[in-house]
Structure formats: structure tokens, C-alpha cells
């Protein structure tokens, strides 16, 4: 078994409003001198440390946990799962 770091990023689906991201864009970034920024989206990241036989299994296991325990709400959120060597 090898230890892997699995990053789970949860963000709103397109079309679901993200007032925090909009506030950071409009009231912080665009009020500075960074006019080339067009969008900022907030997200939540959970970092799992998991022992599995390989990267693929680590990814599918964490995916399964996320679905089973509703770590993200599929009605409004999408999830991205990235695996790294510990």
C-alpha cells in the first residue's frame, strides 16, 4: 500500500451564483490595477491522505466516498479529484 494525497475541489456548477467570487473580483481585484482578470470562482478543497495500492484506486475510492457521503451536493456543485504522491 502506498500513501497518496488526494485533493477534492468542490465548486459551484456554471450558472449557480457565487457571490463571494464576484465580490473578490469586483471589489478587490478590479479595483486594483488588474483589469485583465475576467472571473474569479471560489471553491472548497478537502485534502485526503489515503493508503491504496495505486493512484487510480486512490482516486476512485475518494470519488466513492464523496458520492456516498454527499461530500458535495450534486445539484449545485461539481467536484474535481486530483491525486498526488505523498
Amino acid at each position, binding site marked *: 500500500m502506498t500513501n497518496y494525497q488526494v485533493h477534492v475541489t468542490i465548486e459551484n456548477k456554471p450558472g*449557480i*451564483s457565487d*457571490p463571494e467570487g464576484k465580490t473578490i473580483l469586483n471589489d478587490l481585484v478590479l479595483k486594483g490595477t488588474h483589469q485583465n482578470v475576467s472571473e474569479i470562482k471560489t471553491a472548497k478543497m478537502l485534502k485526503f491522505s489515503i493508503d491504496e495500492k495505486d493512484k487510480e484506486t486512490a482516486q476512485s475510492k475518494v470519488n466513492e466516498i464523496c458520492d456516498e*457521503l454527499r*461530500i458535495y*451536493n450534486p*445539484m*449545485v456543485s461539481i467536484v474535481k479529484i486530483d491525486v498526488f504522491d505523498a
Partner: protein
Amino acid sequence: MNVGVVVFPGSNCDRDMFHVLSDVFNLNAQYCWHDKPLPDNLDAVILPGGFSYGDRLRAGVIAANSPIIQDVKKIAQKGLPILGVCNGFQILVESGLLPGVLLKNDSLNFMCEWTNLIVENNKTPFTNQFELNQKIPIPIANGEGRYYVDDETLNKLEEKNQIVFKYDQVVNGSLNQIAGVCNEDGNVVGMMPHPERAVESEINPQDNKPSTLIFESLLKKAGIEN
């Protein structure tokens, strides 16, 4: 009438609810701790407001995995009246007992203020004493109260008369001003505002009578004249 008030770690409106049930409406209220089975003598169950598990991950999602929720699902299937208030509503949607999701308020602020509800469905065990479109002055107190469903679910909610309460104006960005919904059978109701904070004239600067009808509807459902 025996009414269970489910208590999770972080519930904080459980005692207000218990007080209203027992001292205002003379019901036999009992606390039900989240990791114990639900007593089998209950005629109705209320999930009170608060901050179960500190709203960690997402309001209501951790409590929705508590052992007692399996029992709540069983009695929901039997048709017993179940009311979720605020965090209780969030737990009901996260457990799949009610459709939709409660997102952070548009303002991103915790909102604690008086609102007006409009009754959209007066057939549930918690609204049968209301006239349709009756107004209820009632306070909200939440950070994640913005109701959202996708278009397909919204159509179904409208078709099956599952929208129970709406705000009378834009409050927090809730889709179509939805403040409360029920399941298809109508016995499970969730609402963001706090009726237990509105039924007594001493703490209601407006009109406490409409809020009392939420509990009087439950009494009516149980065949009790108050």
C-alpha cells in the same frame, strides 16, 4: 400528542421548540438525541434550528448522516408529520427527505430579521389552519438559507404543490422567494424561518397569531382541539 424534538450536537433552538410545544400548546414534547433510536410512541417529529456540527462542510450534511435520520425516514414513509426548521430544514434536504438545497445567502451574511411569509399550500399538517396566501410575520436567522432547485425540480414542485411558503419580497436570493417546501405526500415540511420564536406575543412585536396556526394545524391533524 407526543412530539419528538431531535437534538444534534450544535442544535440550539431545541429548547425554544420544546418550550413552545409543551408550555404554549400543552403537547408532550420529548428530546431525542441523534445517536439513539427514535422512541416508537411519537405522533410527530420536529428537527429544530441551530448549528449541527458547526455547519462544517455544509449546513446539515453531517447531521443528515446521523443514525436517527434512518428512523426519521421510516416514520416519514409512514406519513407522520415531520417539520424541519432552519437547520432542521437544511438536514431534511441533505438527507434527501426534501428536494433542493440551501445555499449561502446572497449577501453572504448571517441574517437575523423579521420577514413575512405567504402561505402557498394549506394542505400540509403544519398549514391546514391557514387561508391560502395568508401572511405570517416571522423571523429568520440563518447564513445558508437561499433555497435553490434546478428547473426540472422546480417544475415538479409547482406541479405537485410542494411549495409551502414564500417570502413576500426578495430576502436572501432564494429561488422564486421560496422559504419552505414539503415532500410529495405533504407530511414532511421544511421552512427556514423560526415559528417557535414567533408564537408568543411577549416576543413578537408584530402579530403572533398567524405563527400559532403552524402548531394549531398540527393539533388539528392529530384531532386535538386546543
